[in-house]
C-alpha cells in the first residue's frame, strides 16, 4: 500500500503544479463527513496549550477543604454550594472553578485528568525564565537550544509533512526551537503570497521569491524560506472554506479560540499535523483577580470554552488527539494587597484525550499550612512538570526515550495514560 504520508505530500505538490485546479473529491468528501472511514493508520496528534503569565492553579482547581487556603485568601476563596455558579466538586477535596464548567462532563467521562502541584524544580519566579525552562525542558540549563516539543518530533522516527509541527502563534514558541521542521502560523488564511496580475506574473513572482530565498547566504532566511514555500503549496492544494467548525460548535472569539479552531481545521484537512501548539494570555493576575466574576473567571471561561469547542469540533478524530495544558508557575497561596496574587511556585495542568486515565486529580499535596509551603508562601512543587510531559508525549506519540526528551532528568513518569 502506498505510504499515506508520501501520498499526501506528493498529491499536494501535483495539485499545485497542475495549476491549483479543483478540489479533489476525496478532500471534499472528507470535509463534509463527520466520520471518515480512513483506510490508513492515523498518526497521533498532541496539542499543547501554554497559559502565559502563570495561572493561579489554586483557584482553577481549588483544594476547598483546606482551611489554610480560606485564611490566606479570604477574598478569593470559593466553596462548593448547591447554587448555580459554584465550584464543582471533583473528589471531595478539589473543586473545579465554575467558569470551567465545560470540563465537568469531560472529567466525569474519565477523559480529562488534572495534575496538581506541578511545576519546575528551578525556583525562579520570573515569567520569562520559567517559560524558557519549561519550554526547553531543561530547568537548570539556559544554553539548551532546542525546545522539548521539537525534540519530541525528532523522536517519532518517521518522516513528516511541512505541517507536522504547527504553532498557531505569530512567532515560533521556544518549545518548537530546533532542527526539526516546525511552523508558526498566525492565521491560515494569511498563509499565501498575495500577488496581483496575470497568472504568469503570479507564477514568475513566486518563483523569483523562491529563488531569492534559495540563494541567500543567511541560514535562517534560507531555511525558513524553504519551509514557507513548501507549506504554502500544501495549503494551497486544499480549499480552506470547506473546513468550517462542526455545526453547533462555537469557539470563543479569542486568541485561544481562534488558534484551536485553526488547529481543528488542520486536523480535519489531514495535512499531517502531529504536534500543535497554542497560547492563552492574561494569567498574571496581580490585581483584582475576582472569584466567580472578574479577570480570572473571564480567562477561565475562555480557556474552558475554547478547549471544549475544540474537542467537540474534532469528534471524528478524538481517538488520535491528546491535549495538554501548561503554565510557567502558580501564584502565592495568600492574596496580595491588591486583590490578586503574586508569583508563586506550583500550579495545575489539564490533560484531555481518550487514552488518558481521566476522572482523577493526580497530586502529592499535603496541606497549605504555612510550614508546608515553599518559602512559607507558595504551593510547593510536588510533581516535576517533566514527569507529566514525558508520560503524555511518549505514550501518545509512541516513543520511549524520555532521556532524550528531557536530558539531565531521570525521574519517573506519571502513570496517567492508557498504553
Amino acid at each position, binding site marked *: 500500500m502506498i505510504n499515506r504520508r508520501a501520498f499526501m505530500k506528493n498529491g499536494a505538490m501535483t495539485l499545485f503544479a497542475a495549476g491549483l485546479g479543483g478540489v479533489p473529491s476525496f478532500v471534499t468528501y472528507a470535509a463534509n463527513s463527520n466520520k471518515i472511514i480512513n483506510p490508513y493508520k492515523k498518526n497521533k496528534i498532541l496539542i499543547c496549550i501554554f497559559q*502565559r503569565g502563570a495561572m493561579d492553579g489554586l483557584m482553577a482547581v481549588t483544594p476547598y477543604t483546606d482551611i489554610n487556603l480560606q485564611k490566606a485568601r*479570604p*477574598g478569593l476563596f470559593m466553596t462548593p454550594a448547591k447554587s448555580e455558579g459554584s465550584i464543582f466538586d471533583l473528589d471531595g477535596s478539589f473543586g473545579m472553578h465554575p467558569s470551567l464548567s465545560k470540563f465537568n462532563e469531560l472529567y466525569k467521562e474519565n477523559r480529562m485528568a488534572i495534575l496538581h502541584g506541578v511545576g519546575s524544580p528551578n*525556583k*525562579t*519566579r*520570573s*515569567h*520569562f*525564565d520559567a517559560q524558557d525552562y519549561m519550554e526547553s525542558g531543561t530547568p537548570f540549563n539556559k544554553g539548551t537550544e532546542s525546545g522539548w516539543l521539537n525534540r519530541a518530533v525528532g523522536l517519532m522516527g518517521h518522516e513528516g509533512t511541512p505541517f507536522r509541527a504547527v504553532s498557531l502563534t*505569530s*512567532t*515560533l514558541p521556544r518549545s518548537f*526551537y530546533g532542527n526539526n521542521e516546525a*511552523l*508558526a*502560523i*498566525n*492565521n491560515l488564511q*494569511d*498563509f*499565501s*503570497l*498575495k500577488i*496581483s*496580475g*496575470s497568472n*504568469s*506574473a503570479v507564477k*514568475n*513572482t513566486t*518563483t*523569483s*521569491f523562491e*529563488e*531569492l*530565498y534559495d*540563494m*541567500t547566504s*543567511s541560514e*535562517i*532566511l*534560507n531555511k*525558513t*524560506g524553504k519551509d*514557507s514555500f513548501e*507549506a*504554502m503549496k500544501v495549503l494551497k492544494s486544499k480549499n480552506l472554506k470547506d473546513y468550517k467548525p462542526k455545526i453547533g460548535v462555537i469557539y470563543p472569539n479569542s486568541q485561544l479560540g481562534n488558534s484551536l479552531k485553526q488547529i481543528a481545521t488542520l486536523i480535519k484537512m489531514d495535512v499531517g499535523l502531529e504536534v500543535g501548539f497554542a497560547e492563552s*494570555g*492574561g494569567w498574571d493576575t*496581580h*490585581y483584582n483577580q475576582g472569584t466567580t466574576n472578574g479577570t480570572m473567571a473571564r480567562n477561565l471561561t475562555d480557556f474552558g470554552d475554547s478547549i471544549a469547542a475544540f474537542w467537540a469540533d474534532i469528534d471524528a478524530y478524538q481517538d488520535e488527539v491528546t491535549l495538554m495544558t501548561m503554565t510557567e508557575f502558580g501564584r502565592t497561596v495568600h*492574596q*496580595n*494587597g*491588591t*486583590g*490578586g496574587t*503574586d*508569583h508563586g511556585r506550583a500550579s495545575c495542568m489539564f490533560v484531555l484525550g481518550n487514552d488518558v486515565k481521566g476522572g482523577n486529580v493526580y497530586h502529592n499535596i499535603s496541606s497549605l499550612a504555612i510550614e508546608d509551603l515553599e518559602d512559607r508562601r507558595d504551593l510547593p512543587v510536588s510533581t516535576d512538570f517533566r514527569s507529566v510531559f514525558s508520560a503524555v508525549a511518549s505514550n501518545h506519540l509512541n516513543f520511549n526515550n524520555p532521556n532524550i526528551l528531557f536530558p539531565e532528568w531521570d525521574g519517573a513518569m506519571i502513570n496517567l495514560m492508557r498504553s
Partner: protein
Amino acid sequence: MNSKVLILLFIVLLHITTFGKPNPIIYKTRLSFPYEQMGLTKRQAAVHLLNRFTFGIKPGDVDMVLDMGLEYWFEKQLSSAQPESELAANLASYDALKMNEETIINSFLPQFEIRRLLKSEGVFMADSNFDKKEYKAFIDSFLKEKNIRLPAEYQRQLINQKILRAIYSNNQLTEVLTDFWFNHFNVSLSKNQCAMHILSFERDVIRPNVLGKFENLLVATAKSPAMLEYLDNNYSISFNNEISKNELNNRIKRVAAKAQAPFQDSGVINLIKQRKSQGLNENYARELLELHTLGVEGGYKQKDVTEVAKIFSGWSVVPLLKNNDGRNNFEKSKYYNIEKLGFVVDGSFLFRANRHDDSAKTVLNYHFSPNGGYEEGLKLLENLANNPATAHFICKKLAVRFVSDNPPENLIKKMANTFLKSKGNVKEVLTVMVNSIYFWDENSVRKKIKTPFELTISAIRATNATVKQPYQIFNWCNTLGQKFYYYQAPTGFPDRADYWVNTGSLLNRMNFGMAFSANKIPGVKMDSTIINNNYEPESLDAAIIGISNSILPESSTPKNINRVLKLVSGKELNDKLTQIVGLLIGSPEFQKR
C-alpha cells in the same frame, strides 16, 4: 623640455588647481572608526553605520555621510540637535502631542466616563426618549462643545507619530534609541489603566533621557504614571507607618472617649478590614530587578524582591481625571501642607507617606534605615543603576541591538567598564561600542534581522515614499508580528533573528514588498521617480542595477539575483520595475540591516 621641468610644471599646476577650489570643510572629531582594519571600504562602513543607527537609508544618505565623515556624522547624531522642520510639518495636525498628561486624560474619555460626565452635567437622563440618530447627534455635539474625544483617537495619534518620527526625523539615533529604551522599559496599550499615560511616557520620560545617564532614565520611569500603572505599583501600599498608626489610634481613642467599645465601632472595623485586605504588590519590584537593572542572573533573591516592594510602597500617581472622588480628595489635601508629612508631589507623581512602609530594609547588601521615606527609593535606584550586574546587562542589550544577536563578551566588558566609570553615560558607552573592531566585524555587518517596524520604515525611506495614512503601516507591522505599543509582557519584544523570522511572517514580508511597490497600501505612495526619472531606463538591466543600488546600497547582490529579477513579467517596463522594487523589498537581503 626635459623631464624634470615637466614634473615641476605638473606639480605647480596641481597646486594651483587645488588652491583654486574652495577649501573642503574639515570636521574635527576625536573618533576614528576602525573599519579599514576590519576590511571594509569607507562606503561600506557608511552603509553599515546608517543601517545600525537609523531606521533605513534614504537615497543620498550614504554620500552625505561620506562627505561629512563617518565619525562626525555619528557625533552629530549623539548631539541630537539637527533641525526638524520636515518632521514638525508632518506632526502639525497631531494636537495630543502638545498636551500635558492631565489634558490628555481629560480630553480623551472612554464611553463610561462620557456617560458619567453627561450625568454629572445634568444633560443626560436615563429615560430620555431620543431615537438613536438624534441621541448620537446630541452626544456628538455635546462632546464637540466640551472638546472631548474617544481614546481611539489618542491611540491613533500616538501610533502615527512614532511612524512619522521614524520616517522623517533628522535625529535618527534619538528615535532608534527611543524605540530601544521604550522596549527596555516596556509599557503597553493593552492595559487600560496605563494606556493614557504612554504618550507622555515616551515623550517626557524616555526621549529626553535616551542619550543621558541611565540613572536618570531609571528614576524617570520609576516615577512615571505609565510604569506605576503598568506594573501595579500604584496600588502597592503599606500601613506600617506613623501616620496610619496614629489615624487608627486616634479613631479608637475618639470612640473610647464616647464610652463605646472601639472594636464594635463600624468606622474602626472598616479601617482594620481595609488594612487587612490591602497591601504590597511585588510586580514592579521584581521587574525592576529582573528586567530594568540587574538582570535575572543579577544575584537577587525572593526576599530582596519583597524588600524592594516595601521601598516603593506609596509610590503612586496623582489622580488626574477631574471631577471624581480621588481627584477631589487630592485637591483638598493641598491645603493640609502634606509635604510636611513626607508626601512628595512631582508633576503627576505622588509619594503617599501614609501608604509607605517605614521599617528598615535590606536589598542585596544595601541597608536602609527606618523612616527613609521617598528618598530611600531614589537611593535604591541610584545603587541599582550603578551596579556592575546592571552595567553588564544593559551593555549586552545595547550590543545585541547595535552589533549582533550574540555580541562578543570582550565587547560587552569594555562597554560595561565605560558604563561604570561614566556613571551610566549612554553616549560614552555607544562611542566605545562604535570605536571597537567588533562593531565592524563581518559577524556583525548585515547580520541583524530587521523588525517589522524597521522593515516597513526602511522601505518607505529607501523609496522616498509619501505617507498620508501612517496607521496603515501599523496594520502591516501587526500582520508581520509586531503590534508595537501593545506588547503585553514587561520584557518588551525580543531582539533576535529567530523571533522575527518564521514561516508565516516571512511570506507576509514578501507580501508587504509587493503591496508596497504596487501602491496598494492606502495612503502610502512610493515615489515613482525612483523607477522613472532617476533611472530613465535604457534597458531593463540598467534599471535593475540602478534600483538595487538605491534600495540595497553596497550589498553584495550576487549576479544571479539580477538574473532572477529579470524574470519578472509585465506589459510595460514600469510594471516590471514596480515588481522589481517589490521583490527587492521582500528579498532576504532587505530583511537584514
